[in-house]
């Protein structure tokens, strides 16, 4: 269907410009229109991809700050573990869409609400892995540190945390990948990101957008997973053996 040339209606009517039409691939909604994807990459896909990364980074960063602090406290004060575990486990079990819809009633339809939900989901994994990692430090190392005169804080910083690092990194890796997945759902409540493109596609039925947005999200998740694995191996070359299941 060719686009109409500039239409001038009867006096007083609007000018309807030629909007340019669409390629036959797009108009007939074929499986994947590469030219449309390329043409719209920088205006549609790239901003959403960046947004998605931001969402994830903020969620994992804040989650890590909270969970890390909590894990250290739990490490020193055992009673703290149970309430925090149960709280974060409870938050984690609620299916994501349900949790986001519940939060919206309280804090509205915006990115802040989404971040609250996303942070909640990271807490359990990060807390559990950090604590497991700390507890897995060989007691002999701790005793040796004390024998050398290190204070508890120095022991924590120079011995326990470095040895716990592989487990902590595994936790960050799982949390990151999980957050990318959840962030796609968060778009339903205004978070933006690649999920927004998926919901746009649901609204428009445009197959190319379904496929492109889905593939981008998957590629992002797998790419970050690989990057974090490599990062972990680079920083702790001494521990190739698996501790926590990864």
């Amino acid at each position, binding site marked *: 269907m060719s686009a109409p040339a500039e239409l001038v209606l009867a006096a007083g009517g609007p000018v309807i410009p030629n909007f340019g039409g669409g390629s036959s691939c797009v108009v007939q909604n074929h499986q994947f229109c590469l030219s449309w994807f390329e043409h719209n990459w920088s205006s549609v896909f790239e901003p959403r991809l960046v947004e998605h990364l931001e969402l994830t980074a903020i969620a994992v960063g804040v989650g890590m700050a909270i969970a890390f602090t909590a894990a250290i406290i739990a490490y020193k004060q055992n009673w703290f573990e149970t309430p925090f575990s149960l709280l974060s486990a409870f938050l984690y079990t609620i299916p994501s869409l349900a949790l986001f819809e519940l939060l919206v009633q309280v804090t509205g339809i915006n990115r802040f609400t989404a971040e609250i939900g996303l942070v909640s989901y990271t807490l359990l994994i990060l807390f559990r892995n950090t604590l497991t990692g700390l507890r897995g430090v060989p007691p002999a190392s701790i005793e040796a540190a004390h024998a050398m005169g290190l204070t508890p804080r120095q022991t924590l910083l120079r011995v326990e945390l470095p040895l716990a690092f592989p487990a902590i990194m595994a936790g960050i890796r799982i949390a990151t990948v999980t957050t990318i997945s959840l962030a796609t759902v968060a778009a339903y409540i205004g978070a933006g990101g690649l999920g927004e493109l*998926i919901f746009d596609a649901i609204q428009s039925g445009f197959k190319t957008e379904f496929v492109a947005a889905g593939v981008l999200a998957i590629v992002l998740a797998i790419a970050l997973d690989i990057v974090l694995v490599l990062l972990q191996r680079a920083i702790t070359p001494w521990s190739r053996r698996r501790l926590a299941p990864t």
Partner: protein
Amino acid sequence: MRSSDPVSFFLNNLSLFGDKTAAHVELSLASIGVAFAICVPLGVWLGHLHRGSFLAISVSNIGRALPSLAVISIGIGILGIGFRNTMVALIILAGPVMLTNAYVAVDGVDQDAVQAARAMGMTPLSVLLRVELPLALPLIFAGIRTATVYVIATATLATFAGGGGLGDIIVNEPTYGTAGVVAGSLAIAVLAFAFDGLLALVQLGVTPAPLRRQGRRQRVDAIVEASWETGGRR
């Protein structure tokens, strides 16, 4: 039909919840069933042969990383909407865990037991069926359990693909009100917990007594671990 609180909404709409839950469970179990039929025998077989460890690990890593809505999205783009098409997406999401667990379970069976069985003259098939599988059963089952709870949680998103289920209630605040959204959300959480609990009991049943662990710390860990597996990667 609006009510002021989730509980009365639930009680006033029992048939609605019944229908949606039935659809939700039907979709979930069908997907699990197919994924089980494909992935568990494959994993068991590979583990028995001690081959394909790289495949199993890679499938595990990639499967864990797949964003569920993205897989559903690609499914809509390629297959369209509807029950069967949503099922395909859920099968893809459920498979990796079951495959990897089945592989690791059989691969990791104590080789002394296997050698002893062979020494007694058992055929490889008998070894598999009478020695390896029983010992591997707990871990295989853990994979089924993880996958089932994950699919039940993820089936919430089926509403976007015309697959029905409890998600229909959650996204329809205009019709069902806040009370409905809360009731629907709680219903799915309860459903997930219920299946997890049910399967935990079954898992306890298939775990040989010496391998069971009790103790308060382990129980807290178990709760934490269970809900960690429950939520999984959505």
